[in-house]
């Protein structure tokens, strides 16, 4: 009787020892984090699809972020074809000064002034969708863009009845971009430009165009950029060309320098889309740059989300 009991308990003891060893082995397992399962509860938003709020001339899907002022100085020199006497265009410069502010993380507002035609532009850009993966999967980022330009040059014919509205130009864009990987980002921009007054009757007041651009990062802080605007036929006179630009971005921290070669000298949106006169095949192209300096005006009071 006694023997049986001992045997029984010995067996139980062995079993529990076995269990202990088993559990010991189990807890030796390396990947504790794997026990918790994959992180599917977070959404990772893609950031920095482009280094700046511009690809070259065209707006990118990016905005400066809440409370950040982007002060932009943009220059386009004269055409290379103007010859050595003009230092291949460097003697002349058209420029735009811009003050652009991140009202929220999604909304930015800005204004600028260009010396060509003495134009003042104002715009709003809103981040509608952000590329993301994880809990929320979104293949592209989408921003909506709207701008208005006021031309303030004196009336060409002050004798006739002139309306203020004749000075106004509008531009609407849907910016669709995808950051394919760390290096490559591509953006498409269906565009509508409306001009209240045009020079020739053969020109359309509403101009439809499709913009395309992209960047390829060489290093963490530099990238090669390309941008093209295709204006649908029979809207502009033959004097105008499609805008084509090649650029190089250098990010130094607070500054982004964008250097480029382009056939467009206007720097506001309706300008380079519908008023580009330079032709690549005739050498009417120019060197230009944008300098963007970011100032943090308002910091987040608390960094806890």
């Amino acid at each position: 009787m006694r023997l049986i009991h001992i045997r029984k308990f010995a067996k139980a003891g062995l079993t529990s020892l076995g269990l202990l060893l088993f559990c010991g082995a189990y807890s030796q397992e390396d990947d504790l984090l794997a026990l918790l399962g994959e992180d599917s509860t977070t959404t990772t938003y893609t950031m920095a699809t482009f280094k700046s709020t511009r690809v070259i001339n065209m707006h990118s899907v990016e905005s400066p972020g809440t409370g950040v002022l982007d002060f932009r100085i943009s220059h386009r020199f004269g055409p290379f074809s103007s010859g050595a006497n003009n230092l291949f265009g460097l003697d002349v410069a058209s420029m735009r000064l811009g003050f652009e502010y991140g009202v929220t993380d999604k909304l930015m507002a800005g204004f600028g002034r260009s010396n060509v035609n003495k134009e003042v532009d104002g715009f709003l850009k809103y981040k509608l969708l952000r590329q993301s993966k994880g809990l929320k999967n979104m293949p592209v980022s989408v921003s909506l863009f709207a701008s208005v330009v006021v031309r303030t040059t004196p009336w060409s014919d002050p004798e006739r009845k002139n309306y203020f509205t004749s000075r106004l130009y509008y531009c609407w864009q849907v910016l669709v971009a995808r950051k394919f990987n760390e290096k490559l980002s591509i953006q498409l921009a269906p565009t509508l430009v409306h001009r209240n007054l045009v020079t020739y009757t053969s020109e359309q007041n509403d101009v439809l165009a499709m913009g395309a651009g992209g960047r390829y990062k060489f290093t963490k802080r530099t990238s090669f950029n390309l941008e093209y605007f295709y204006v649908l036929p029979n809207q502009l006179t033959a004097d105008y060309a499609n805008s084509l630009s090649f650029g190089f971005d250098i990010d130094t921290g607070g500054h982004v320098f964008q250097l480029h070669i382009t056939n467009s000298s206007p720097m506001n949106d309706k300008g380079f889309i519908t008023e580009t006169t330079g032709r690549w095949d005739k050498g009417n192209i120019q060197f230009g740059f944008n300098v963007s300096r970011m100032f943090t005006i308002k910091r987040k009071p608390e960094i806890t989300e």
Partner: protein
Amino acid sequence: MKKIILSIFLATVAITQLSAQKYFTKDGSIKFFSATKAENIEANNNKATFVLDAATGQVEISVLITGFVFKQALMQEHFNENYMESEKFPKATFKGKIEDLSSVKLTADGSYKIKVTGDMTMHGVTKQITVDATLNVRGGKISVDSKFGVNPKDYNIAIPDMVRDNIASNIEITLKGDLQELKK
């Protein structure tokens, strides 16, 4: 004899169950602070995962780099894009072990100063480090906090000359978490 064997058996079962216990949190906080004469930079992440295996003293921590929130949006972008390269290296992890686990009794209330040694991986570089931490046990609840320094250079995080004066060579990391039992 019978009673002794029985009590050994029960004790064995009890230990077995206890030793299988693991504790975790998915809302751990990791803060970093870089202090220089030029400026102070801080960022916070409240979505860090900590796991502690009470039986072996194994500790694992994982955190998404993109989850660090800065006061300045631009800094946050640069942190991810230019320094941590979060697209390439999305997570920072630590896998280590509590040294002299025997002095820690997670079943009794108390505060334990511990040393944890293990591998820290970030920006694609793995380094062995030893950090001091405190385990607090209150009414069956375990919380952990730790403070230690990290040198960006050790993890191949290049800092350009232009901003060298703005980023500390020893960045202070503060880590806090309230752990709960992992039921599985």
